[in-house]
């Protein structure tokens, strides 16, 4: 049921959003770009398993997230202890980066999908396969943690 043209359209229209979230998850822009490419390639290969075009966006977001998380794990395995690429940045930005990196996976991913992909709670719930309430709770907890870090 998945239409290759609809997938291509989504890629062309929203590439930067996908890439931005992938960068947030993976850390490295190159590895993130690779994750996005792989996710869309997989979506093309498996498009016939998608039953509803309405679910296309969430389905692809899920693939992008999974591909990015895989990339992140691979990077950790290949370079033990190596964190995300960082440029010279103001202290407070570095602190925030560390605070975000320290969040539990679900909170971090929810935060990225909300702030960098601008997805609604319902969409995030569909992408991450959790209840809407879980999204709200994770986002609230993440904000609280980051706020506390900012104050500290």
């Amino acid at each position: 049921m998945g239409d290759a043209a609809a997938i291509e359209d989504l890629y062309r229209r929203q590439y930067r959003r996908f890439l931005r979230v992938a960068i947030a998850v993976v850390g490295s822009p190159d590895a993130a770009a690779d994750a996005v490419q792989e996710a869309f390639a997989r979506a093309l290969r498996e498009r016939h398993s998608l039953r509803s075009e309405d679910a296309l966006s969430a389905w692809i977001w899920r693939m992008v997230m999974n591909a990015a998380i895989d990339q992140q794990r691979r990077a950790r395995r290949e370079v033990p202890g190596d964190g995300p690429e960082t440029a010279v940045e103001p202290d407070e930005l570095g602190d925030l980066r560390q605070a975000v990196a320290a969040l539990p996976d679900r909170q971090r991913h929810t935060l990225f999908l909300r702030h960098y992909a601008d997805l609604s709670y319902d969409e995030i719930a569909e992408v991450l396969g959790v209840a809407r309430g879980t999204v709200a709770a994770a986002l609230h907890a993440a904000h609280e943690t980051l706020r506390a870090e900012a104050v500290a």
Partner: protein
Amino acid sequence: MLEQLVPVPDGFGDWDDVLQRAGIVKRSAPPRKVVVAAAVGVLLVVLFATPAFGVLLDLIGRTDVPFAGKAAPTRVQRSFFDMTVGAPRGMGPQAIAAQTRRVGVLGGRALYVAPTRGGGFCWEFERASGGCDTERRRPLSTTWALMEHGGGPLLVQKVAGELLAARAQTLEVEYADGATTQIPFIWVTKPIDAGFFLYAIPAAHRRGAARAVAVEARDANGKVIARDRMVYARPHLPIGKTPPVPPSYRPPPPLPAPTAPLQRGSANGVSVIVGANGIAEFHVSNPSLQKADWACLKFMRYHQVDPLELGYARQAVHGSRIELGSLRGPVDGCEVRPGRGHTWPDPRGYHSGAEIAFTARARRYFADRAAARELALYMRWSKNHPNAPPTGITIAHNGADTVYSVRSTTGRRFTVTKRNGRIVRENVTPYAGPL
């Protein structure tokens, strides 16, 4: 702060790379000598066998085709029609959508063209590229599809466009290293009287030193008669920064008031006045709808079941008025809809935030759409939640079929019939999108 942590990246991606990774092989242009040899061979086939133009167009330079052939599918006609309806008044191309024809295939994409009322034309390579030309001023107009690799310079990955120089016999892409590639194009006879091309730049020319720099048309003597150059220069901004607003920028002037005869209506803390001049004025007192989007709708040709709806995101609206372009009054209705969409079960129901019907037909549409939405959302939801209680949904078993149904307040019944886990019949799609 979070915004600064991961700035919006630059780039357009590389769709061809996705295709390659997916194992979908795109036919790349064969070397020129092979093209010549193949063209000769193909020519013999054409002379002695069948005029199988569809498969030949990729291999030869110019192909003349009559403005005739199969009528375009309704989807394409509708997209040409919508271009005019959705445009600000006087700016729509006025395509004669009913005359849209499928005139050929290039690069695996069907080419559709339609004349416009002012003597121009609209064109589309199916789901790839397209446009309209109402003025016929530029002899060669190219759309350059760009991509970026690893923060490097922008590169062209695909060219598409239109050609008005009737004497053109060949069309070439020129590269920065001096190489050229002859590319195929389709010339469509009057009333279109124009040529169209679509060509994927080979991977070897997606590098800075060999990137595409121009498209040019030559006559039978090899003389360049039209040339369109790619300008790569662009302001260099750090990633994530947006260009500064030029000092000459002025917000758009306020829209005029709606003019008589007026349509007035209100619902759920929203009132709207629509004028014959195509201006709709909204007043929203409902606090929960302050940030919701505004839209008006009308039933018309190509939109008999699902009306054509023209809307604006709230943040894109200056003041309290929106311009409906060619969708001028009288309209059938207007609505205010939160951007969050609906899920099943939705405690807020399946109507938009405020639905204002000016006609009985719109009233029925709003009611039917809500019912169709409910059923469609249940069907989508239940795929991943097989134990979801079907609150409000009637389920009946009829032999091998399972029929899910909802009745609208108009009395209309919406159904989805499943057999062996597959949907075999349904009537919700026009109202609620594909299942």
